[in-house]
């Protein structure tokens, strides 16, 4: 009893010596939706960690900073967290451009980084020789690997042969588009259309007309949430017959599932709030308890997992020494809402978390997103239009 009390007092008093984790997120600007979702995930994880006794016997502290989705703002904020707030570890990171921008100071200070987002290939280049860079989110080529896997399945079982590609003309859509086309061809698909569009412009009329002429089995679009409804609307209006409309936006529009136009639209996600996975159900319950709502943004559980695994690694290491924590972190092997998490080398970096196998393919069926592939996770049979 006495010791317990003492521990409590110590816990309360010892803030000064507590482990501090800096979290750099886009809380404003273009990436703010993902950033805000991640922030909620971090706070949920923080609550749980501290309720369970904190890190190294003290409450864990988080320092949030807003990178404004802009490299010029991200660099000072990163440096502030590292040098002023003197955080022991850095977490967060959503946008690729800001992540690359902070790679300079990160190397300069040898900062330990447990990074959740930033999937673009140049990020991998920028952090290739960084010894303490743990990357959770799959690199974009893993996304594609997952997509290709799904499409190959469709080819075999649904006789899908032709693909039309619509991609936004920014970095998100255009990255590696040539390689994508090649890979589809190599896999035996006929790529009948490759069209750029300007995200947010909502003008898909000409693109869909063109697609109609090309008669594809699958329309694969790489864009943002803003493009989802306009594209779906246009397809319906021009009566474009597809086997599947498949998209990979980082997030989907709020309330899209309730719109009948979303029916049968398929997409890619690391996670779904409806996932039957036990960790996922636990997370959803905890999230709902804390915030009163359910989130569909996978950056919330990703951030949650990110902080939980980091805290666990520190506790296992028993110190904040970067090398030791990294060694423990590398041994991570836990089940998460996304499936099992372990770190292994990617093409260029040493510690890559989730990979192609973690992606889920879902379809909007009824008023919800339902996993349909891989088949072992499927809750309902997929609807294929042809």
């Amino acid at each position, binding site marked *: 009893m006495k010791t317990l009390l003492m521990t409590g007092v110590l816990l309360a008093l010892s803030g000064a010596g507590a482990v501090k984790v800096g979290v750099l997120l886009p809380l404003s600007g273009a990436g703010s939706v993902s950033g805000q979702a991640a922030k909620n995930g971090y706070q949920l994880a923080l609550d749980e960690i501290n309720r369970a006794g904190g890190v190294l016997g003290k409450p864990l502290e988080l320092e949030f900073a807003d990178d404004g989705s802009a490299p010029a*703002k991200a660099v*000072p904020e990163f440096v502030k967290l590292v*040098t002023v707030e003197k955080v022991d570890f850095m977490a967060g990171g959503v946008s690729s*451009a800001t992540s690359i921008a902070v790679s*300079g100071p990160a190397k300069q200070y040898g900062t330990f980084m447990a990074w959740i987002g930033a999937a673009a290939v140049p990020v991998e280049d920028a952090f290739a020789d960084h010894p303490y860079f743990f990357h959770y989110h799959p690199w974009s080529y893993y996304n594609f690997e997952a997509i290709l896997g799904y499409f190959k399945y469709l080819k075999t079982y649904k006789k899908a042969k032709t693909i039309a590609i619509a991609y936004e003309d*920014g*970095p998100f859509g255009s990255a590696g588009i040539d390689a994508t086309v090649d890979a589809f061809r190599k896999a035996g698909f006929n790529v009948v259309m490759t069209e750029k569009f300007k995200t947010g412009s909502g003008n898909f009329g000409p693109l869909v007309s063109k697609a109609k002429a090309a008669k594809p089995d699958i329309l694969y679009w790489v864009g943002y949430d803003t493009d989802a409804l306009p594209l779906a609307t246009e397809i319906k209006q021009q009566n474009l017959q597809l086997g599947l409309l498949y998209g990979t936006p980082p997030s989907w529009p709020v309330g899209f599932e309730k719109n009948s136009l979303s029916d049968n639209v398929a997409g890619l996600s690391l996670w779904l709030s409806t996932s039957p996975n036990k960790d996922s159900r636990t997370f959803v319950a905890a999230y709902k308890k804390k915030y009163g709502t359910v989130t569909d943004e996978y950056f919330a559980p990703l951030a949650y997992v990110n902080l939980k695994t980091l805290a666990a690694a520190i506790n296992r290491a028993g110190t904040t020494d970067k090398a030791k924590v990294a060694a423990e972190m590398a041994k991570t092997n836990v089940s998460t809402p996304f499936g099992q998490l372990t770190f292994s080398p990617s093409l260029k970096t040493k510690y890559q978390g989730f990979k192609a196998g973690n992606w889920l393919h879902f379809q909007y069926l009824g008023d919800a997103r339902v996993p349909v592939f891989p088949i072992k996770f499927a809750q309902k049979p997929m609807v294929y239009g042809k």
Partner: protein
Amino acid sequence: MSARQAEAGAPVRAAPRREITPGAALPLLGFLLLAALFPFLPLGSRAEFLLQIAFFTLVAGIMALSWDILARSGQVSLAHAAFYGLGAYGYALLLKAGLPWLLAMPVAALLAGGVSLILGAVTMRLSGMYFAIATLAFTEVVRTIIQNLPESVAGGATGLLVPALLGGNSRAQYALAWGLLAFTVLVSLAVRLTRLHFAFAAIRQGEETARVLGVSIVRFKLLAFFISSSLAALAGVLYAGKTFFINPLETFSLANSIAPLTTSIFGGLYTTLGPVLGATVLRVAEELLHNSVKDGYLVVYGLVLMLSILWLPRGLMGLRRNRKHGGDL
């Protein structure tokens, strides 16, 4: 000849009070000195962080001042994002081509200057809103071209990785930014103190009158374009070398054209100190707001801009008492 003069007897010459005295340069020198000493100030643990903020403030200062130099000739441009981007891309591509950075930097600036001459030549007769939209259109066209070039050439929409400036040493980077700002200030002063000032100001305040007085507007408008865009390109080089990564969407964004405009108006147009001071105050204000109002800081920022126009139409420079025309640097 006149009765007035006959009364006075001998010709009277008033002391040239309004001529620019070395004293007028004191605030500017003070600013530069303070900026030079900044890394050595005892700022404790915040030093590194503030140095980063200060670096980007210097870049913003270079952009604003370069914009102002063009504005002095009556050309209110929305093409500064293009020059900034051309500088950044020029630098990155020249490095890729194997040029040493010290050479790549000025060559990128001159290239941007050269491109700006084309723009300047075709927008020669436009003014006001038409000029602004034409320059905006130019920016969009340049951005799209770079974005649609094959990825192997300029990185396409994805962007380009850029080697770290000065090995990523933040103090050295700061020193370089300071040097480039000081250079920009010198150029601005040179424009202010030579015949260029008379040509630019005359064109701005009355293009037709200026022509009647023999000012060749073609030559001076183009010169303003060249100087301004080259300096803006230097700011772009600093940005590229600091953030290691450039892509068309961010480097050519409209915000990069609008920021120098608002900064200059806020600080005080057609002066050297005004835009630099404006950049500093706005950046500091943004940082303070960011930390105090967190979520709504940009709302307050917009409000500050609006109020400053309603209450302070001549910008910060208008705050100085007894401000008379002509004597400001």
